[in-house]
């Protein structure tokens, strides 16, 4: 029993890029607990900054405990020491969204009740959105939001104990692109992993798509994408490509794009 427990516990750095399962323990390099212990780090080593324990991981005793199955990812600490320490997280796949504070999502207004709107974001509960949480909204000047409108906003309160709340302004009161999304266009659902892949800093899919036609696109972290192009056909083409590219390899994708750009 003891051997089995020890076999699961490996240093975190070794398992980066491997599949981890819930229940695995990842050991972290021991942090100096007393001030005297810092000396052994050596003159060249930087002080360990705060390590970010991302989604799918929890801190427990000696290290990190895995709570979701997936690939373990790591990001090196950036900046000159003063910045954040590295980050570990589990890259897992799921279709069901769980509201998280700070995430930008696309929601559909379902109920308009007095001062608040109820917005369906694909989670277990509907999020509430106050009418004052729009740019330039006052008690007299209400925003023009109807039932069935699409809203792009971010969560301010999102935990398992409370009803999620979202707003369409940032901390300084500006909209920054949030708010009601226009009337035309197409909304469709994809898996959460695809959204993260598409929003990664150097995503080729988006760059290649951008070369095809002029269009506008909004990504919600809850798996919803809204696309609008000049004609309905172009909109549908973009939507189909995005849905399909989750399962295509790079060569298949380039072939598909080549076919499209010929037309």
């Amino acid at each position, binding site marked *: 029993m003891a051997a089995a427990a020890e076999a699961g516990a490996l240093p975190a750095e070794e398992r980066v890029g491997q599949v981890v399962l819930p229940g695995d323990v990842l050991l*972290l390099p021991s*942090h100096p607990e007393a001030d005297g212990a810092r000396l052994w780090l050596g003159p060249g080593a930087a002080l*360990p*900054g*705060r*390590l*970010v*324990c*991302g*989604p799918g*991981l*929890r*801190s427990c005793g000696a290290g*990190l405990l895995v709570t979701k199955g997936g690939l373990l*990812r790591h*990001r090196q600490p*950036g*900046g*000159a020491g003063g*910045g*954040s*320490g590295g*980050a570990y*997280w589990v890259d897992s796949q799921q279709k069901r969204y769980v509201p*998280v*504070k*700070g*995430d*930008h999502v696309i929601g559909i207004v379902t109920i308009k009740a007095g001062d608040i709107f109820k917005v369906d974001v694909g989670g277990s509960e509907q999020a509430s959105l106050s009418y004052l949480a729009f740019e330039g909204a006052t008690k007299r000047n209400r925003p023009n939001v109807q039932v069935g409108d699409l809203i*792009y906003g971010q969560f301010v309160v999102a935990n398992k104990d409370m009803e999620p709340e979202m707003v369409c302004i940032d901390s300084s009161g500006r909209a*920054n*692109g949030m708010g009601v999304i226009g009337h035309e266009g197409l909304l469709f659902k994809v898996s959460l992993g695809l959204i*993260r892949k598409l*929003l*990664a*800093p150097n*995503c080729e899919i*988006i760059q290649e*798509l*951008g070369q095809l*036609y*002029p*269009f*506008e*696109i*909004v*990504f*919600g*972290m809850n798996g919803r994408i809204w696309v*609008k*192009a*000049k004609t309905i056909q172009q909109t549908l083409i973009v939507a189909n490509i995005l849905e399909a590219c989750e399962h295509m390899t790079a060569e298949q994708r380039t072939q598909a794009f080549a076919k499209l750009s010929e037309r």
Partner: protein
Amino acid sequence: MAGEVKTKLSKNLLRMKFMQRGLDSETKKQLEEEEKKIISEEHWYLDLPELKEKESFIIEERSFMPCEDLLYGRMSFKGFNPEIEKLMIQMNSRYKKEEIEADDTAEADVSDEEMARRYETLVGTIGKKFLKKRDQRVLQDEDENSNMRPSKAKKMFLKPQD
């Protein structure tokens, strides 16, 4: 005589607001602590030793945004929506600026040295405007002594000779 014997003011009187305005922060703190002591003696408390909070190096984060450095979710291509395109540049560059705090290589129209030179002379010229005539003279003498650069001979007012 009356000044030597100071009447002792009661604590309730000292607690009143108009008496506290003149006190300095230290006496205020002392009074607050005394009050807290009176209250806390009636309250029940756990007789445990003080537990030190472990300084945790691990921050738990449930969102993917800081981990993977995701881009802003709203995008527009080929000029479909110019406002969104402006916003894209703004948000993504603002995000990158937060990363690159150390290098401050902002491209300026005027280089730093040029700016320093101009500013130096500017401060001098505008400062002279507000000097009185006597000070201007003194300044002039100092300039001639300390200045390394050959300065033009200032044309003084010549009194017309009869």
